């Protein structure tokens, strides 16, 4: 295992190379005034964690897995007084419909009204939005500095990390559906936990200490098994997940990482694909140059999967996962979201058009410890 200094310097060099590339590739698309929302006061002391969580600990064989069960949000940092949304929340499809087609006695055809709105969802464009769109603003956000730069459109994390890339927060931060009062967080978590299609697991290997280890390998897998459910609707550590090494081969990817004071940070994974099946029409969200930042314990992990998220895939997943009533009640206008996504996209420009195809963002998530079963272990068990 490399020593800490070597590892740090290698990280720094790679980060600066990525930063240079990012400067060339990422147009600045920040608009509006930045209003700083101060970090919230520290929460009341959390209940004392299990003694085993406080101690330094090395997992058996240097390996520990964590399965994703809770999608907290799409990287939203919400303040109690909604400082990040100084203009309020965006209106949704019902309100937009009412504004566009007021009850003024004018006769309109179905094609001119509902079908026009439907077409705007399924065949969206980047023409200027007919409705005002309120982006989330402020100094702070959840996420990771993906490009190694601290530019004006970037945010700062609550723990003082600069250059946080999270333009997706600007898109969805002031849409009710994506906030705590919305229902997406609850339902995506339910789907994540209950639908085998959505099962993904990270495994750390080469771990000598879950508190501090300068060199670990993090692998990402699509896995096959149901979660270990507890009696009160939570999900428990100690389950097992078999890797889908057949149909899930394309999901498998690894990256190096390090653990400092119990927090894992990785180098970029080239691409992490996150399956998302909501209502039976499956989609895949793609995180390019993805990085993990997770607070680890022997029983759980929580933090973010950050990266440049493919805009078209994300938009498709949104439209196929969510029914009209979700969008209506959650005031999430797909057409307006698409325009904002394209407007704020900040990575992976199309070689031909030069338009960015990905937007920086983060999935705020919680995971629970699992044993990851590799194929060779399956074979060994069968041989027994």
């Amino acid at each position: 295992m490399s020593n800490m200094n070597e590892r740090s310097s290698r990280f720094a060099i790679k980060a600066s190379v990525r930063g240079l590339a990012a400067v060339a590739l990422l147009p600045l698309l920040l608009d509006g005034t930045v209003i700083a929302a101060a970090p919230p006061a520290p929460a009341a002391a959390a209940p004392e964690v299990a003694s085993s969580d406080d101690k330094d600990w090395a997992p058996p064989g240097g390996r520990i897995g964590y399965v994703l069960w809770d999608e907290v949000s799409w990287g939203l940092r919400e303040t109690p007084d909604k400082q990040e949304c100084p203009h309020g929340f965006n209106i949704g499809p019902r309100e937009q419909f009412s504004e566009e087609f007021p009850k003024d006695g004018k006769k309109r055809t179905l094609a001119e009204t509902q079908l026009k709105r439907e077409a705007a969802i399924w065949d969206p464009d980047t023409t200027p939005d007919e409705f005002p769109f309120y982006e989330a603003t402020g100094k702070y956000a959840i996420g990771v500095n993906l490009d190694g730069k601290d530019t004006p459109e970037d945010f700062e994390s609550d723990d003082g990390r600069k250059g946080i890339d999270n333009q997706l927060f600007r898109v969805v931060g002031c849409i009710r559906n994506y906030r705590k009062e919305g229902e997406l967080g609850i339902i995506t978590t339910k789907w994540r936990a209950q639908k085998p299609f959505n099962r993904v697991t990270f495994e750390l290997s080469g771990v000598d200490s879950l508190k501090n280890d300068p060199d670990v390998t993090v692998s990402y897998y699509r896995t096959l098994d149901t979660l270990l459910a507890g009696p009160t609707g939570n999900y428990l550590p100690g389950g097992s997940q078999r890797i889908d090494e057949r149909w899930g081969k394309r999901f498998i990817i690894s990256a190096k990482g390090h653990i400092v004071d119990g927090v894992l940070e990785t180098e970029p994974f080239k691409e992490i694909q996150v399956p998302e099946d909501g209502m039976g029409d499956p989609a895949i969200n793609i995180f390019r140059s993805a990085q993990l930042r997770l607070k680890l314990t022997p029983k759980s992990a929580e933090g973010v999967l950050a990266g440049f998220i493919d805009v078209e895939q994300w938009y498709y997943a949104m439209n196929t996962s969510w029914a009209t009533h979700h969008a209506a009640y959650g005031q999430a206008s797909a057409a307006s979201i698409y325009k904002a996504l394209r407007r704020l996209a900040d990575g992976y420009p199309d070689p031909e058009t030069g338009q960015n195809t990905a937007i920086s963002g983060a999935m705020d998530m919680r995971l629970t410890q699992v044993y990851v079963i590799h194929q060779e272990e399956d074979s060994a068990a069968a041989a027994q």
Partner: protein
Amino acid sequence: MTGGAALAVTLLVATAVGALHGSGEPKSKGTPMSMRLLTQDQYLNTMAYVFGANVQPTTRFAALPRTDGLLASGASIAGLTDAQLETYQKTASKVASQVMSEDSRKYLVPCEPAAADAADAVCAKAFFEQVAPLLYRRTLSDDQIAAFVGAAGAAAASLHDFYQGLGVVLEGILISPNVLLVAEVGEPDPEHPGQLRLDRWSLATRLSLFLWNAAPDAELLNAAQSGALETDEGLAEQVDRMLASPRLETGVRALFDDMFAFEDFSRLAKDNTIYPNFTGETAVDAREQTLRTVVDHLITHRGDYRDLFTTRKTFMSPSLAPIYKVAAQGPGWTPYEFPADDPHAGLLTQVSFEALHSHPGRSSATLRGKALREVMLCQTVPRPPANVDFSKVQNPDGSVKTARERIAFHLQNASCAGCHRIMDPMGLSMEAFDGSGTFRHEENGVEIDTSGNLDGVEFKDIVGLGKALHDNPQVPWCAVRRTFAYGTGTAADSNDRRVLEHLSAEFADQGYVFPDLLRDVALSRAFRQVYEPKLRKTYPLPDLKSAERTQQRAAADALTVSANP
């Protein structure tokens, strides 16, 4: 010593050994002829054999009283209530309707009637000749079959449905006392004048319930019918056939499920806020894990019975893996072997023992020690006095961290110490497992002292306790005692002592191979030899409902006459 003298000594020793072992079975009274209830599993296994595995009615027979460590012994003293009869009747009705359903009748009724809406005596006869002997566990006379055919014909004519006619009579057969009750019949033993032996049908049933936990199959009934079962060779041939059958696994599972008192799993519950990993599925799998371990070790690998208490080989399921803090290799059961330095070794370290003998929210050294004594060693621990002060166990003193400290007063108080001295020293070594059966080093932050002793053998941890059990002569003796009592359906008593000692010696000589013990028991003379039990004379109260039941009793009598072979 000359060659001749040496030969003489050798012969003398061989004769002495032969007298003690092998053919040297000591004389005994045998066991009492019993009348026992067919258990739920025996009933369902029989239905599965006669009609196929698809015919599995959902039912719940009444609980049996556990007697001398076995439900099988309790079945011979169980009563029969109106509510039980209702359950039997409902179950019989379900079986009959499943057998006669349009899908099943094609292969369960061996012929097609001339018309589906009328009686067909020929086809009905073929059906009853096939199934009735298997249900009554004996061959039936032509008159008895004719009675069934006649009743089925009358019902078919009345219901305008041949299959419903068969179903009505099948339902009647299934609630016949001769089907639901196993009434053993004795006959004079020609080889031992003055003694009784089981008649051929009773012997076939006793063998089949013992080894398969089901009624005899057609081949065993044929052997009984031909008289082969009454010869040593014929009996051995049938026993060997049954031991070689895959159905032996069902029988052995039933024996150990009974011996380990696993019916308690049906009412086992854990406090989910304390043990969130312990679910209903965990309990089901814990029972299954131990039965799989037993069958694999004893039957598949013909391993030493005593090694059950030290083996690290078992099977793992996704529900159990979190309790053991290991990975589950698959969605179902997979073989699993704990590493050599792991604290899990033997049945005592399995969830089935540790969780079953604990409280819902905490472990219990006393319950575990008691279970070890009673289940594994066939010893009896006296019941606690009525005035036990449990507040001492639930000591609220925060400085008392471990069970060893909490129950120390057991051994200091003379009225407690008498019994607790035989439970706590080994029960405390099992404190290495919490109430859900999960291994732990600490309790309330304090390292657990797992040392103890079993009948003078000191050990420092649970693995040591397993080894002490392995080497304890009471362990195989207990297995022999329970197996014999289970096989004969009556609690072992002092009459059986010499036979049990003989079987124990045989068991030891054969390397504690369990199928060999089953064979020895099944072929022993004591297994076949019976005597009239002493019946207590009772004076029943007058039946106050007689007047209003006259009609019902007449109907019941008529049914009994027609169904009684």
